[in-house]
């Protein structure tokens, strides 16, 4: 590694043992990274490994706690984001970050202003800014959004937003591109087009790519860097990285799911029929029907933006249904508010854990506790880690601990149905194992769990049955064991 750390004149980017802390959490720990001019570098690693933070620090939107950053021989440590951008650095955001009130075209046009030197033009009409409109439309065309030019950004589907993100970045005529999961949530033709677009990007542009789709990352990148828990785990050519056993375990998981017994099902607890809902105009879920029986663990698989979280939120009552029915133990809750659903036995472990600001772990647990088999003692027995954390503010806990709180919090509702939204997100492999154990023990205790996951291994390890969501529809429904036995079919139906 030492050879890498020494700055090279050909470097477009030199990150020198950069550390970034948020309160107690260390997101980046002495990360060093050198990217040559024109190089394509893929940054991979599990959620929460610090990939996005790395981008934030490079692009100047976050100040590093320690370490140095050079872009094109220019020290940019602590430089405000706009100046970094003016050095020719463009980025896309993991969570699409657009000007929602503006039209798609306006979004890209805003992107062209800096490069076009129009940013301070206070006289001529923006709408009639011919050159930037031209560039803008071209950028849109390249990502295949030409026909959406006049739609308001807020109206775009998840996938389209991702494309627009990319278009905006391209409109900046960047010398260096930071792409944060540009393919996340894209499928079929969209995915094809964007993928091709990325591969066809001019070679003189230096590109850093964060991507979960390993196969894509591999044939895109010249070199790959693996981040885990904020540290560089490995770096090298795709082949080298792929071969690296450590990477194998950490990132790709074991790949082998334990074969599990089908155990006797109780009567149907949750019956969802023809559910449809969405945000604004956009319809996210269409005609979704699923069923969960007592004592069963059902997993919902699907890539980002395919509607998994939306489904759970809709079930919990966070967003109104367009149509469809939700029966819990025979009573239709479709029209009831979240409070009623919570009180009639639904509990949710939300995506991102959503710890409550200013509450201690104890308070979080006590907050919704209802009498029943689950009490604080039993919850702490399940997650001993929480015992010593009891007095800490939940938001200062590590991701894994927060996940435990979120689960315990929900369990103490003594719910008839426990819904978990991406519990593995941002957890280190070790923690995912703990989580797996926890969920299994819940299943063996006869709890009913509806689990939305991206982590196939985890899902297959704990689930009895699996539904696969593809762009808001259920495209497959099989016993977990069957899928585990036939991973290739699974990966196909997941579009990986």
């Amino acid at each position, binding site marked *: 590694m030492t050879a890498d750390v020494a700055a090279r004149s050909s470097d477009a980017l030199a990150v020198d043992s950069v550390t970034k802390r948020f309160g107690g959490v260390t997101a980046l720990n002495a990360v060093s990274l050198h990217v040559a001019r024109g190089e394509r570098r893929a940054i991979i690693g599990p959620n929460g490994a610090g990939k996005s933070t790395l981008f934030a620090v490079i692009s100047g939107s976050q100040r590093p706690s320690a370490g140095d950053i050079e872009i094109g021989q220019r020290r940019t440590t602590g430089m405000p984001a706009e100046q970094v951008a003016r050095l020719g650095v463009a980025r896309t955001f993991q969570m699409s970050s657009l000007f929602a009130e503006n039209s798609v075209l306006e979004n890209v046009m805003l992107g062209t*202003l800096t490069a076009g030197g129009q940013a301070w033009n206070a006289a001529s009409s923006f709408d009639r800014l011919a050159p930037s409109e031209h560039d803008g439309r071209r950028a849109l065309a390249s990502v295949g959004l030409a026909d959406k030019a006049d739609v308001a950004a807020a109206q775009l589907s998840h996938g389209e937003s991702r494309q627009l993100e990319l278009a905006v970045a391209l409109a900046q005529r960047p010398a260096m591109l930071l792409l944060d999961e540009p393919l996340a949530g894209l499928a079929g033709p969209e995915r094809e087009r964007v993928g091709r677009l990325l591969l066809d990007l001019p070679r003189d542009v230096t590109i850093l790519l964060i991507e979960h789709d390993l196969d894509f990352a591999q044939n895109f990148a010249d070199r790959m860097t693996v981040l885990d828990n904020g540290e560089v785990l490995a770096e090298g050519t795709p082949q080298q990285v792929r071969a690296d056993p450590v990477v194998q375990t950490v990132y790709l998981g074991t790949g082998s799911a334990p074969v599990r017994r089908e155990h006797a099902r109780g009567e149907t607890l949750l019956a969802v029929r023809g559910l449809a809902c969405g945000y604004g105009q956009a319809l996210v879920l269409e005609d979704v029907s699923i069923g969960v029986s007592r004592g069963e663990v059902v997993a919902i698989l699907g890539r980002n933006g395919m509607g998994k979280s939306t489904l759970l939120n809709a079930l919990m009552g966070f967003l109104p249904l367009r149509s469809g029915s939700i029966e819990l133990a025979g009573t239709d809750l479709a029209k009831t508010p979240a409070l009623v659903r919570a009180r009639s036995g639904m509990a949710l472990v939300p995506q991102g854990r959503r710890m409550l600001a200013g509450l201690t772990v104890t308070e979080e647990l006590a907050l919704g506790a209802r009498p029943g088999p689950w009490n604080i003692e039993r919850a702490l027995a399940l997650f001993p880690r929480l015992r010593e954390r009891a007095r800490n503010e939940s938001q200062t806990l590590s991701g894994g601990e927060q996940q435990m709180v979120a689960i315990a919090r929900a369990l103490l509702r003594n719910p008839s149905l426990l819904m978990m939204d991406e519990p593995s997100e941002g957890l280190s492999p070790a923690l995912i194992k703990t989580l797996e154990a926890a969920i299994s023990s819940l299943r063996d205790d006869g709890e009913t769990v509806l689990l939305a996951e991206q982590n196939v291994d985890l899902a297959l390890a704990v689930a009895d049955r699996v539904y696969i969501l593809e762009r808001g529809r259920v495209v497959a429904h099989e016993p977990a064991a069957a899928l585990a036995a036939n991973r290739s079919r699974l990966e196909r139906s997941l579009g990986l």
Partner: protein
Amino acid sequence: MLAVLGVIAALVPFALHGYPLYVASEVALYALAAVALDLLAGYAGLVSLGQAAFFGIGAYAAAIVSAHAGPNIALTLAVGFAAAAVFGAVVAPLALRSAGIFFLMITLAFAQLVWATADKWRSLTGGSDGFVIAKVALSDTAFYAVCLGLLVVTLLLLARLLRAPAGRVLDAVRQNEPRARALGLAAFWYKYWAFVVAGGITGLAGVLHAHHRNFASLADLSWTNSVLLLVIVLLGGLRSLWGAVAGAAVFVLLQVWISSITDRWENFLIGAVLVAIVLLTRRGLWSILFPPAAVAAER
């Protein structure tokens, strides 16, 4: 469009004279201040509770200049604008460190500081006695023309600015600052200029107000005056220069009308109207007249 507007507005002096004309000028000058605040609160997303500072600075500038150099409105307007803008330029770096409710508070704090200064600096401001200003050598019609002229010019320039790239960037910064900065747009400086310009324009309104009443007083600097301006803008609906104008017109006329029916329940009625409007409209009066686009309404 400009023509139509001009014609109607220009007709006002013939349609009105005496008190109604006086009121028309009043509307125009409050509209000016409201438009400025709308630029700040609406487009830049910087809701200020300190506009009274700029307004008052303008008013006292008018008073002091008139006292020393005679009531020359061109001069007082120039000085008033400059004084208010400079104040804004000095305060902005500190004020812009905060956003949202905190920005509201710090602007309030600065305004109060100005108020306290004016209150103490009797030799300059006449303290609580206020400051009598010699009448400017303008007929009511001419004065109205000045107010209207300034308003129209301001509207023109702002409308142009807001349609220009710089204006769109300002609006973009309000919507999503991190993204804007990632695009290489220096968010701070856009807000800075919005703050300074809005300050200057409010200063102009203050000057006109002072000449209109031939008087400048601490009340011009009082925080309740800031609240009033904010009420006017919210009344008209954020992010619509026309809304701001409408808000000013409605509010001023409302006050005049109410005070002609009662001298006891003015505040009550004004309050009632406020509550009604807030409850009935999503984005102020303007949205009744012109329902905003679905997206805009979403936010």
